[in-house]
């Protein structure tokens, strides 16, 4: 009896230790991966590398246009997806009753988050380029301007991709607002919109911000959907156009042009470069920049959420 109990405890100890070991093994592997990227990439990172354009058949130079393209696409993506996503979440949490219809929206949003990103690429091609773009060209008689892969449609596709992320994280933040605060606002005679504007949204702000940041980070890292939506191997010029009103000209992102993209740049360098060994430092450098951007964004999101939860706990 005593022996068997002791034996059981030993196996228990073993398994607990084993679980611990597995967990720290994972941590070790992660550190190894990050360490490798930092070790190989840090040497090439410089202001020049970040700002310069690729030179000499991509074996020299920097990743400036790729960073610019990434910024341009994600900016448009955020402008398209965040307003719609946040409003949809406000509707779902504040207005919609728990009907069959709203349950379908919720299920669909949840499931949309699991649809492979390459399928979003197909959707972008079929819907934005071939349907909207081609019809737009016919109506506006612009020739083949919008009916081909370009920055706008890539950003639009990515915004559909990140829409569920924005909706779900905003929804979480909105639902977490204490019911008592909302009731108190009604009790003071505020209308529904006043309550939402003055009570619900201010409290949910960190959550909304978290959703936006996560959306940006997802957009920055996503490669598969933009493979055939306008990401280019190499472009000598930035996708910029001068928007002139009278004499004043402001340089603007040109949404009808192709673009370079950081994540796509890594893919191209790693798989289609003419001399992969020669470009290896550039590959690691680009990877380090991409990892740094996504980590910075995600750490910001994590800290925001942590602070927000603490703040809620105090209430």
């Amino acid at each position, binding site marked *: 009896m005593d022996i068997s109990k002791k034996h*059981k*405890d030993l196996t*228990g100890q073993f398994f*607990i230790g084993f679980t*611990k070991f*597995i*967990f720290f093994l994972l941590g070790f592997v*992660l550190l190894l*991966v990050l360490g*490798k990227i930092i070790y190989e990439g840090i040497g090439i990172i410089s202001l020049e590398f970040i700002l310069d354009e690729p030179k000499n058949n991509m074996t020299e130079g920097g990743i400036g246009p790729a960073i610019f393209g990434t910024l341009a696409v994600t900016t448009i993506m955020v402008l398209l997806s965040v*307003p*719609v*996503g946040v*409003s*949809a979440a*406000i*509707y779902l949490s504040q*207005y*919609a009753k728990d009907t069959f219809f709203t349950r379908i*929206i919720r*299920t*669909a*949003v*949840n*499931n949309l*988050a*699991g*649809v*492979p*990103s*390459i*399928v979003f*690429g*197909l*959707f972008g091609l*079929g819907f934005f380029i*071939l349907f909207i773009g081609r019809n737009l060209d016919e109506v506006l008689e612009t020739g083949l301007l919008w009916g081909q892969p370009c920055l706008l449609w890539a950003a639009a596709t990515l915004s*559909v991709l990140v*829409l569920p992320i924005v*909706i779900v994280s905003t929804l979480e933040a909105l639902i977490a607002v204490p019911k008592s605060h909302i009731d108190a606002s009604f009790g003071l005679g505020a209308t*529904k*919109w006043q309550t939402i504007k003055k009570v619900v949204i201010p409290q949910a702000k960190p959550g909304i911000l978290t959703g936006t940041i996560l959306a940006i980070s997802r957009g*920055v*890292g*996503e*490669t*598969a959907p933009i*493979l*055939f939506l306008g990401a280019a191997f190499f472009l000598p010029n930035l996708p910029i156009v001068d928007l002139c009103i009278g004499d004043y000209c402001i340089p603007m992102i040109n949404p009808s042009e192709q673009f370079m993209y950081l*994540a796509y740049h*890594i*893919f191209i360098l*790693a*798989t289609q470069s003419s001399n992969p060994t020669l470009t290896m430092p550039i590959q690691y450098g680009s*990877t380090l920049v*991409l990892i740094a951007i*996504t*980590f910075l964004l*995600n750490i910001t999101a*994590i800290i925001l959420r942590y602070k927000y939860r603490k703040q809620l706990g105090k209430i």
Partner: protein
Amino acid sequence: MVDTTKSVDKIKNEDSELSKSESSLYGKKISINVRIKEKIIEYFFAANGIVALVFIILIFVFLFREGIQALNNVGILDFIYFDQIQIDKSVQRLYEWYPTSSEERYSLLPLIVGTLLTAIPATLISTFFGVAAGVYLSEISNPKAREFLKPMIELFASIPTVVLGFLMLVVGASVFDDLFHPSNRLNAFIAALGLSFVIIPIIASMTEDALRSIPNDLRMASYGLGATKWQTISRVIIPAGFSGVSASIILGFGRAIGETMIVLMAAGNASNITTDLFLSVRTMTATIAAEMGEVSQGSDHYYALFFIGIILFTITFFLNLIAEIIINKMRKKNIF
């Protein structure tokens, strides 16, 4: 002074107007104007909810609109095999994906085999590591460490897949090649290893959520009966959280099937029908990614790629649905 009296008068006027229009909202009388404004705002938000829904429907519609054409142009049997007539007029049945040859071959079997050969090992590896990590986080680690470790897992999950594909291609494959000398340098197993980087965090964090939501009474009751920590974990906590854990594995499997960049870069992209993990394979996602850019729109090949998209969409949609149903059932039982 004058101003305030004026505004008081105004308020009095409004009050009398309010009592005339006996409209009430939340038990308070409110003017028609405000009600209209409130309604407009509500409809604005509702419209955005509908926009979100419309895009979900559109994905479905456009995917199917293009993909269903494939059944007209290519035919359902052609997606399974291709009968090649030899010089001696005998027929050779080919299971090949070779859409650019003079005799176009559209068999999906090698692609499906390739997808499963990367996704299943990846899910198995990830289940082992992911569940262990989840159990550690929820039951074994001390709560203060957890505050720090859980975000680490989230950070782990945020590594762009193109980076993982790159590392597998450049480092992982070389190390593996030196150690084990596989038949192909880039193979299904290398891709599966890369995929597990994506899936382990998903399984780990969902497992942790599921186990942590199990009421503490259960643990205490188990300890009260004299069970050790490991007995409590293995016989009480894991069975109680089983549905949550299985939901996370299903989701992970769906992610493994749908992941593109890692398999595109590390699986070797040669369509083989094989069970050999160390041969190059080509997955459904990688096929779309690699071929969509060069295909001419409206060709049989183009529609065939959309057809693959339909298959991927359907599989992942149903896997997600199953996982969601399981989680909802758990919530109803008040365990999750």
